[in-house]
C-alpha cells in the first residue's frame, strides 16, 4: 500500500509539484495528466531519484522519502524508464541479470572458481520464466540495438519483473507501441497483477488506462485534481477541462 502525502517539489521557483497527496492499494493504478503535469517528477520522487521539498512517501507504512534508489529497490519497488535504460554492451538476456544481481548473489569465491553451476542454472531458469511471461524468449541473445522497440520495452518490463518486486512502477509503458503490441502489453500487465504484484503506471493513452486500471489519479500543473475509479474520473469537470481545455474560454 503506497501513501503519498503533501509532496511538493520546486526547481528554483518553478513549482513542479504542490502538496500532492493520495493513497493507492493493490491492483493496477494509473497516474494520468497532460504533458508537464509533473507525472515523471512524482515518479522520480517515489523511486528515490528526487528528494521532495515537503511531504513524505510511505510504502507499507515505512517512510521511504529519504532512502536512496537502491534502498527503495530493496523494499520491493522496481521501475521501468520512459526512454529505455538498457545496457547496450551486453546481450538482452544479460540485461536481465541486472534485475537479479542484487537479489541472488553467488558467494564470490564459489562464483570465481566456476563451481557455482547450480546458481547459474537457477538464474537461467528465472530468466526463461520471465522471458516467457513477456514472450520475448527468442530475442534473448541479441544486442539491444538489433531488436525492435516493442521488444526492448518488454525486456525492460521483464527486467523489473525478474526482481520479484511487490510494487512495479511503469513509466509510460504504452508509449510508442502499435495496437497489437498494446494489447499484448495489457495481457502481460494483467498476468503480473494476477501474480500478486501491484502496478502504478504513468500513462497518456486513455483507452489503455480505461480497460486496465482500477484506480486513477489525475495530475495537472503539479496538483491532484481528482482520484477515484476510472468512471468517476471521466465525469470530473476539472479533468475534462484539463484535457479538452475550457469550453467557454
Amino acid at each position, binding site marked *: 500500500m503506497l501513501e503519498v502525502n503533501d509532496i511538493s517539489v520546486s526547481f528554483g521557483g518553478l513549482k513542479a509539484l504542490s502538496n500532492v497527496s493520495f493513497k493507492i492499494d493493490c491492483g493496477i493504478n494509473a497516474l494520468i495528466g497532460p504533458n508537464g503535469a509533473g507525472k515523471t517528477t512524482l515518479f522520480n520522487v517515489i523511486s528515490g531519484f528526487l528528494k521532495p521539498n515537503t511531504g513524505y512517501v510511505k510504502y507499507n507504512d515505512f517512510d521511504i522519502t529519504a532512502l536512496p534508489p*537502491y534502498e527503495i529497490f530493496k523494499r520491493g519497488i522496481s521501475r521501468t524508464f520512459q526512454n529505455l535504460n538498457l*545496457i547496450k*554492451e551486453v546481450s538482452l538476456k544479460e540485461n536481465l541479470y541486472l534485475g537479479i*544481481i542484487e537479489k541472488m*548473489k553467488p558467494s564470490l569465491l564459489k*562464483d570465481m572458481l*566456476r563451481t557455482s553451476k547450480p546458481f547459474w542454472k537457477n538464474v537461467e531458469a528465472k530468466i526463461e520464466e520471465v522471458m516467457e511471461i513477456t514472450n520475448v524468449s527468442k530475442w534473448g541473445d541479441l544486442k539491444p540495438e538489433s531488436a525492435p522497440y516493442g521488444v526492448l520495452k518488454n525486456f525492460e518490463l521483464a527486467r523489473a519483473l525478474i*526482481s520479484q518486486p511487490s510494487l512495479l512502477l511503469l513509466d509510460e509503458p504504452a508509449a510508442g507501441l502499435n495496437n497489437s503490441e498494446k494489447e499484448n502489453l495489457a495481457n502481460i500487465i494483467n498476468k503480473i497483477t494476477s501474480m500478486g504484484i501491484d502496478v502504478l503506471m504513468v500513462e497518456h493513452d486513455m483507452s489503455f488506462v480505461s480497460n486496465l486500471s482500477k484506480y486513477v489519479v489525475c495530475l495537472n500543473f503539479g496538483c491532484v485534481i481528482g482520484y477515484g475509479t476510472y468512471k468517476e474520473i471521466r465525469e470530473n469537470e476539472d479533468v475534462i477541462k484539463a484535457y479538452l481545455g475550457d469550453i467557454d474560454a
Partner: protein
Amino acid sequence: MKKTNKLYLIFLIVFLSVFYFLVENQFYRSIVIYVMFNAINASLLNILFGYAGIISLGQAAFFGIGAYTTGILTVHFGINPFLTILIGAFISFVVAYIVGFPTLKLHGHYLAMATLGFGMIVYILFNEFTDITGGPSGLVGIAKLSIFGILIDDESKFYIFFSVIFVGFSILLELFDKSFYSYKLKFIKESESASKSFGINVSKVKLIVFATTSMFSAVVGSLFAFYSGFISPVSFSLKYSIDLFVMATLGGLGSITGGTLGAALLTVFPELISNFEDYEMIIYGSLLAIIVMFFPQGISGLIKKMLGKYVRS
C-alpha cells in the same frame, strides 16, 4: 555462464616457459619482465576504465606508493621484505578509499582531472620528503626478496618468480571477467541510474573497485622496487599514468586481453626502433594514431576479428 577463455591462459604459460628455455640472454628476459609489470598495471587500469568506466589518470601514484613503502621500510627500517608488501598494499587501499570517496562522485573530464591532480600531489611528495624518500636522486640499496631460502637477485630467478605471479594474476583476472560480479561493473559503466534503481549501491561498488585495483598496483609496485633495487620519482610520474592509459586503450578497453596486448606492444616496440632516437617519438606517436584511428576496438578486437570464432575472450 561464459566459458573461461582457456586458450589465452595456456598460450601465456607456453610462451613464458618456452621463452625462458629458448632465450638465455638476460636483456630479453628483462624486457619480458617489464612487459609483465606494464601488463598487470594496464590490466588493472582496464578493469577500472574499460569495465567500470572510472577514468583514472593517477594509477602511477599507487604503483609508486607500493614501491616507496617497500623501499623506505627496507632501506631505513630493515623490515622483512614480505611484510613491506602487505603494508604497502594496506596503505594504498586506505589512501585509495579516502581519496576515492569524494573523487568518485565526479564523472568524465572532472574525474580524469581529479585523479591526475592526485597523481601529481603524490609525485611531488615523493620528490619533497628527501630525507625519507631520497627525493629526486631516489632511494638506493633496496633489499632483495627471498622465497623458501632462495634469494631472488638476478634476472632469471626474478623472471621465474614474476612469471608465476603474472600467470596467477591473469587467471584471477580471467575468472573475474567471467564472474557475475564483472556484470555489475559493466552495468554501472553503462547507466548508473539503471543500476541504482536495481539495488546496486553504485558509489560503494566504485569505491571498492578503485581501492582494490590500487591495492594490487601497490603490490606490483613493491615487486618493482625489489626487482630494480633503486627507485626514483621519475618512474611514477604522470607520464607513466598516461602510458598505462594508452596501453589499455590500444590493447582494447573492456576486453580481458586488452591490458596485456597493449603493454606487450608498447614495451617491445621502442626497443626495436631505439637506434634512431631522434625519430622515435614521431614513430611512436604515429603508431599510436594509426591504431586508434583504424583499429578502434584495439588490438584484442583486431585479433578477435582475425581469429573469428576460435577465441572468445
